[in-house]
């Protein structure tokens, strides 16, 4: 059984300054990594003899419009099927520089996940073989999950409260 403590120590020993903010909300090991160390980090976790974190569960992003310098956060969920151990890596990006290296060479499954993240959040994955929208229509000229858009179109008259007896 791997514990969060052990794994965190292993990662800190290897990457030192480029990883930070270790935490375990709901017992899920979570930490922040630097953009330029992301690919070596995930490669290291995959090739490690005892950790064997060889499965990419998910790639997504979060938008924090009110946090200056850390407007975007790309989140990687990894899973070790051998040890039944999960962890979460966060990479913070600033608005205007939403580039992050792709991990498709490591995990082919990242291809569609990164396309989805690009589609909904506008994160650019450098080196991705085919970075185009996957869910929304090609003609769409914005990234709908950004929090700058209101939840509802305020100009509409066909779904006002009065029509629903509210």
């Amino acid at each position, binding site marked *: 059984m791997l514990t969060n403590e052990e794994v965190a120590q292993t990662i800190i020993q290897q990457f030192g300054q480029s990883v930070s903010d270790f935490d375990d909300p709901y017992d899920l090991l979570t930490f922040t990594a630097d953009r330029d160390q992301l690919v070596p980090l995930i490669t290291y976790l995959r090739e490690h003899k005892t950790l064997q974190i060889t499965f990419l569960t998910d790639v997504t992003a979060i938008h924090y419009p009110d946090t200056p310098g850390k407007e975007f956060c790309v989140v990687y969920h990894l899973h070790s099927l051998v040890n039944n151990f999960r962890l979460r890596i966060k990479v913070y990006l600033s608005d205007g520089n939403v580039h992050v290296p792709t991990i498709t060479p490591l995990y082919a499954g990242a291809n569609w996940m990164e396309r989805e993240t690009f589609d909904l959040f506008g994160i650019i994955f450098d080196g991705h073989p085919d970075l185009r929208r996957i*869910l929304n229509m090609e003609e769409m000229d914005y990234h709908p999950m950004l929090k700058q858009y209101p939840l509802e179109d305020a100009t509409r008259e*066909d779904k006002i409260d009065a029509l629903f007896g509210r």
Partner: protein
Amino acid sequence: MASDIKLVEGPESYNGAGFQATSFDKLIGLARANSLWPLPFATSCCGIEFMSTMSSTYDLARFGSERPSFSPRQADMLLVAGTIAKKMGPVVKQVYLQMAEPRWVMAIGACASSGGIFDTYSVLQGIDRIIPVDVYVPGCPPRPEQILDGVMQIQELAKNESLRRRNTEEYQKLLNSYNIQ
């Protein structure tokens, strides 16, 4: 003949011994109304409800809609049941364009009629944004009885439609407002 069998009433006509005189409009309307072949475009929960409508309990075939056509060929009635995403919009429009006149369209359920609860960037807020609609069936999802009622409404439209309606300027204007033709 057993008394519980219902026959369709004949059109208004002038009857005499051995002959019956009526207008072409009514005769053809009668034929069209009682053989509306549906093209079910079912995407979600309303589609399941529509399957129920086609099955034995509700039996859509009673209305002459015996053959659900999954191609636009020979289909008269486009039944759009379920959420239509904006990405699906062009497909619905293409299916509509491939159907031959006369054609009727029914929007089944809240989503097809207005986007329903999905007041969001990815969902078309009602199919009447891309194709003309004849009958809207409310409900989320509507019961099969409501869908049958919608079909009967379309039958009424088909019965009472003038033969030249599809050639009128008004109809051309309607289609042009959707950039059709």
